[in-house]
């Protein structure tokens, strides 16, 4: 059974388009995260949700809008995509920061 899953795995799109990435976890965790990993492998947190509520928004452009319909799902919608949005986006879940985070397989977004 997959613990944290993301769809799609690859996403290639044109500048200006809108796209969504979906994430689901079956671990029963209350906390979910979105991370962005750039071409230099720098891994940076974007958002953190706890029980469907936004806890952290790391000064991410408001073109990025996370949505958590329930505590097992955290989706990421991106409007007006820009070249600089190209990266690998990881979803993760956990109990809290005193415990491990489980990462999804990642979504490689390429904006042309």
């Amino acid at each position: 059974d997959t613990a944290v899953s993301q769809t799609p795995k690859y996403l290639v799109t044109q500048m200006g388009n809108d796209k969504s990435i979906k994430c689901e976890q079956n671990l029963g965790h209350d906390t979910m995260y979105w991370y962005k990993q750039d071409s230099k492998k720098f891994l940076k947190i974007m958002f953190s949700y706890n029980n469907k509520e936004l806890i952290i928004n790391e000064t991410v452009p408001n073109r990025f809008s996370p949505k958590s319909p329930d505590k097992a799902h955290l989706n990421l919608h991106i409007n007006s995509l820009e070249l600089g949005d190209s990266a690998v986006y990881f979803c993760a879940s956990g109990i809290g920061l005193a415990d491990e985070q489980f990462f999804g397989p990642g979504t490689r977004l390429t904006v042309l």
Partner: protein
Amino acid sequence: QQPVQSPQAVILREGEDAVINCSSSKALYSVHWYRQKHGEAPVFLMILLKGGEQKGHDKISASFNEKKQQSSLYLTASQLSYSGTYFCGTDLTGGGNKLTFGTGTQLKVEL
């Protein structure tokens, strides 16, 4: 605020040992270590908490010097499977939900 890791890269022969360091300019509540293989997701290795508690895999060892805001990950008798990029993540508050990951250390183990 991003923790600094050293070395940036290291190449080992199988069986050799290595130490990866993580240093922060701010006081830390906990340090987390993850390994990421090429094209894959980061995988948890260990958490070191202020006060001395540790959680992680038995075959991994690490230290946390709270006064110096530093942590070190010790890889002994390295195996080919140890290859990957190692990240430390730091939690400054203990009460939040934010990890700030370091610059990464690329480790390659060769025969």
